[in-house]
């Protein structure tokens, strides 16, 4: 299990460790203080390079990443973290420019928060993402029961997914999305519903977050992600698992 779901997806025991990569000192200090006060262990660095180095030396549970960074920018940092594993990433953007949001999500971010953000909003997002990661395997003592959907095998207790015989490495958000959809095969779930249930957005969210995650999920579980069979788009409604 450990090799399939890396550090970020492990059950978080005690203080979740947050790596904050933000170049403005006041924002960095403010967020460190606020998140620290809410029970997170915050590692704050000012540049992307530092952040990547810290990632290796003290692996965090989640990365909060500013997009506008001097030197190595947030998009690139995001891509490198994704290339290395499925550590959850929340990007922090000072400009709610659509192009940034789209690019950030395409680079692999799980969610985004627009600055200036209230610490409780950011904290809620972090918790939501971590909750996805830490869906309690321990709280499911029943023997593993593997659901079969075509080639896909989903073990809700062990939180593992296999395709054919091979395990599929899914990021926590992708896994939560797949679990949510496959729970009600054949039923259409709206983007807004998914946003509220998987991402726990407490406001009218950006459905592009859902779309970006669906794209990533398809790339991992579909034979041909341009002609998906597991996660199908229903125009005007949202997404549906199957029918196969």
């Amino acid at each position, binding site marked *: 299990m450990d090799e399939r779901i890396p550090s970020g997806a492990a059950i978080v025991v005690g203080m979740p460790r947050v790596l904050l990569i933000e170049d403005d000192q006041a924002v960095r200090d*403010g967020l460190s203080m606020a998140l620290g006060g809410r029970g997170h262990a915050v590692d704050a660095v000012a540049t992307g390079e530092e952040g990547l180095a810290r990632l290796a030396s003290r692996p965090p549970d989640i990365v909060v990443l500013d997009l506008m960074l001097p030197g190595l920018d947030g998009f690139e940092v995001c891509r490198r973290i994704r290339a290395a594993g499925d550590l959850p990433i929340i990007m922090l953007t000072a400009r709610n420019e659509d192009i940034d949001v789209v690019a950030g999500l395409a680079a692999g971010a799980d969610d985004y928060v627009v*600055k200036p953000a*209230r610490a409780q909003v950011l904290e809620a997002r972090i918790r939501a993402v971590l909750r996805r990661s830490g869906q309690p395997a321990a709280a499911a003592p029943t023997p593993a029961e593997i659901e079969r959907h075509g080639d896909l095998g989903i073990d809700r207790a062990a939180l593992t997914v296999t395709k054919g015989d091979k395990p599929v490495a899914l990021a926590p958000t992708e896994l939560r999305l797949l679990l949510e959809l496959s729970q009600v095969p054949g039923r259409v779930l709206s983007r807004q519903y998914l946003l509220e249930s998987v991402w726990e957005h407490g406001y009218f969210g950006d459905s592009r977050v859902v779309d970006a995650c669906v794209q990533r999920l398809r790339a991992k579980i579909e034979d041909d992600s341009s002609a998906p069979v597991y996660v199908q788009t229903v125009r005007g409604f949202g997404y549906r698992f199957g029918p196969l």
Partner: protein
Amino acid sequence: MKLGGLRTRLLLAFSLLVVITAATVAGGAYVQSRTVILQQAQDATARVLVDKATALFPLGPLPPADGTLSRISGELSDRDLSSLVLYEDKSSGNEQMRALISPELRERVRSGNVAWQRVDSRGTPMLVVGTRFTVLLPGGQQRDSGIEAYIARSMAPEAKSIDELATRAWLIGGVALVFAIGLALLAARGVLRPVRELGDAARRLGKGDLRARISVRGSDELAGVARTFNETAEALERHVGELERMEADARRFVADVSHELRTPLAAMTAVADVLEQEASKLPGDAGRAAKMSIEETHNLTRLVNDLIEVSRFDAGAAALAPEEVDVAEVITASLRIRGWTGEVEGDLPSGIFAEWDPRRVDVIVANLVGNALRHGEKPVALRLSEAGEWITLEVSDRGPGLAPEVLPHVFDRFYKADSARARSGGSGLGLAIAWENARLHGGTLSAANGVDGGAVFTLRLPRLGVTA
């Protein structure tokens, strides 16, 4: 062609000129030639008659013998001429001629003259000339014989010549008229083209194409007008450009300021939450001050976010991200997330689909319903309906409604319906942003008062959202 237009007037003037000239010249020549031709024919015929009569002189004794009259008529007629000789009740010659001889002609001939008259004989113009014969009495004395001789000849060749003359006169007149119309059109074009160009350019300028210019040709009055027009347009373009630059500068300044405010606000917002946890523990004024600065930080954040949104509309950077949505579902989610479901009466039939940007529609709904809940009185009612390509959402409340002087300004930025009223939690930009979002979808947002009181905001969007 316009009836009172310059071209018509020029054409009429030229044509009139040509008609008068042609009528005078060709008409005059025609009349004169006709007179000469007729005169010559008459003179020649009269001379022939006189010559022949002279050759017959002296006639025999009176009363003439029977053969005399026929001799005279025989002598007078030839290939071209027919003759009739009359003496008292006798006659000789072509009897058909008698119809051609009018009583006036006989009168004049009897009084001793050589007289003529043009008559029409079944379509052929004829000239009839008559004279009286004198006889020489034995005493050498001449006296009237009482014999009248008439000759008639056809005037057809002359008539033909005259007709030809007339045809030629008409032809010349016609050619001149065509030529004149051509000239008039040419002149009209020379004047009208610059005038039309000027008109087109002025129209383009009026429609906002400040680059409209016209080419200046020659150095006449029209060229002067063209030059003046160009100078005016240039000055206008310069002024408008300057105004636009200033406005763009002002807008950019607002956008820049908003963006610059974001970073310190991001830090303040982050620590405000830290402070909030401690504020209740702070004694007296310090606690109140902390609470106040937390609250105002959040207000400032909202204001800056709205300002950034508004400047994005101003810069034309706001883009629509349409997706097919069930309108009722978007509205319901918008209400549910804000905890308004219980406070709003909704008539929201599902199954109305549209290509809209759900986030922007959410902003509109949130602002309209939020506004109704804040300023109006419950119940706030939502009514969704569709008609053809348009979908309408009405948000109404049961409050006192909007004052007539407020109505035209409700969507103005920072407009406060009641200047005395304290800030109400909104940034003052909410309805303006809602309005811009409606416009971005190619629709409208309007405010009015309902029949039974209360304000009614009506959102009308086309099913297929289009970027305005």
